[in-house]
């Protein structure tokens, strides 16, 4: 998947960005339109940051205007919302304003994937098609990987104006958030307490630390996270040993060894 996105960027002669995620989505998922919408941490506003296709522009605008639609629901429920037939009974009741307008524009199916890791939510990836029908299993897997890539890209953009947080988009790989190791998520929670911030800021600070002190790949992110969980690294301004700190270098908890 990273290769498909990179190929889009290469053919355009540009560094990898959200627009290439959208183009890859159009190609791989036979989509008429795709969009990435961002949820602002501060205002709660939901706004388009990258849209591909004229249909996408109109549908995105309608969703933002009405405040309803598959993407809005996906963010509210923290899970993908897959609508293989917008004309099917019941769909119109779910989104009474959006569905008739979408059908009139020629959209027949919608697939919205929340861009999130746990409580850290930054937006949605939306796929619109002009023919009804489910995504194949392979397309669903591609869509989930594209959503991972979009999440990473969006986070890279989110705090780019702040110089110390600016990172190359693929600094920790598109799968950073699907990190199999729970320490990254645990550390994000811990850093949010230490800094008194939300999870997004906490994660970006953790990643910035890993980038500055490591080889800027997923492995160093995990190492930084383990250091936070073990109490060897704290983001608290308090010079005292950080909350959660423990004596000893052991990687585990207080539980006895197996």
């Amino acid at each position: 998947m990273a290769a498909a996105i990179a190929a889009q960027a290469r053919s355009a002669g540009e560094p990898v960005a959200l627009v290439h995620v959208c183009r890859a989505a159009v190609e791989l998922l036979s989509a008429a339109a795709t969009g990435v919408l961002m949820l602002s941490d501060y205002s709660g506003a939901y706004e388009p940051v990258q849209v591909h296709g004229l249909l996408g522009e109109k549908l995105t605008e309608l969703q933002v205007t009405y405040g309803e639609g598959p993407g809005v629901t996906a963010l509210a429920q923290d899970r993908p919302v897959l609508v293989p037939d917008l004309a099917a009974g019941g769909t119109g009741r779910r989104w009474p304003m959006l569905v008739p307008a979408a059908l009139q524009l020629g959209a027949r199916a919608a697939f919205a994937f929340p861009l999130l890791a746990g409580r850290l939510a930054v937006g949605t990836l939306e796929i619109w098609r002009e023919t009804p029908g489910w995504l194949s299993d392979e397309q669903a897997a591609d869509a989930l990987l594209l959503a991972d890539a979009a999440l990473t890209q969006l986070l890279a953009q989110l705090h780019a104006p702040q110089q110390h947080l600016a990172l190359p988009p693929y600094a920790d790989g598109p799968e950073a958030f699907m990190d199999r190791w729970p320490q990254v998520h645990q550390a994000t929670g811990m850093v949010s307490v230490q800094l008194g911030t939300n999870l997004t800021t906490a994660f970006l600070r953790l990643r910035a630390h890993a980038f500055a002190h490591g080889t800027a790949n997923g492995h160093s992110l995990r190492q930084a996270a383990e250091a936070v969980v073990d109490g060897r690294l704290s983001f608290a301004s308090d010079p005292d040993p950080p909350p959660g700190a423990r004596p000893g270098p052991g990687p585990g908890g207080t539980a006895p060894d197996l």
Partner: protein
Amino acid sequence: MLEQRIAQAFVELADTLVAGFDAIDLLHTLTERCADLLEIEAAGILLADQRGGLHAMAATDQRVQLLELLQRQEHDGPCLDVYRTGRPVACTDLATDRRWPAFAAAARACGFSAVYGLPLRLRDQTIGAMNLLSTTPGGLSAEAVAIAQALADVATISVLTERVLQQQTTITEQLQGALNSRVLIEQAKGVLAAHHRLTVADAFVLLRAFARSRNRNLTEVATAVIDRAPDIAELLSPGASPGQTTQR
């Protein structure tokens, strides 16, 4: 007596209408009941992320060594075989088994001698695998394995029919929701651990006990912890962790 406990476990795992039902909590309960009824030392569950990966979702305890042993099977081990084939796997003696040398060495280093893998299935689709781990070599009886598989089947249906299951693709919505819940719970564990100066393992015990004692959904409580919501203020108050292993 055993039959009664088995019957109770079935009821517990099938009752999705109970107040506070939560998919991740249910998977933890499944591992605990299997370990208890089969008299083995540990059990764990991996779910497929539908992108080609497997994620450790629940375990009988939160020891890092156990969780890492579960997670490493994403690359090699009985659970990966179970997930790929949809069929159960048994290894009665890790010392002589040659199927997964790296996993066997890691499992033995943790003290385990026998391992079983059972599929989590819905119709003909395998969504993950359960690991049963024993410190004594030798086989579980066919009856014991059948009980564990039946409990796993019931739990799988409960997890996936949390909402109405009509189409195969709806599994994507259900599974992604469950996978995200696990991540959210990890974040909440981190918040609680930093707040109370606990290990993340103890933070999970505290989180789950709080949710249980109030008949509340584990994921909802975890969300409230991350949001510092007023309704869980008690959980973040200084006296919230009596009996926990306080650090430092």
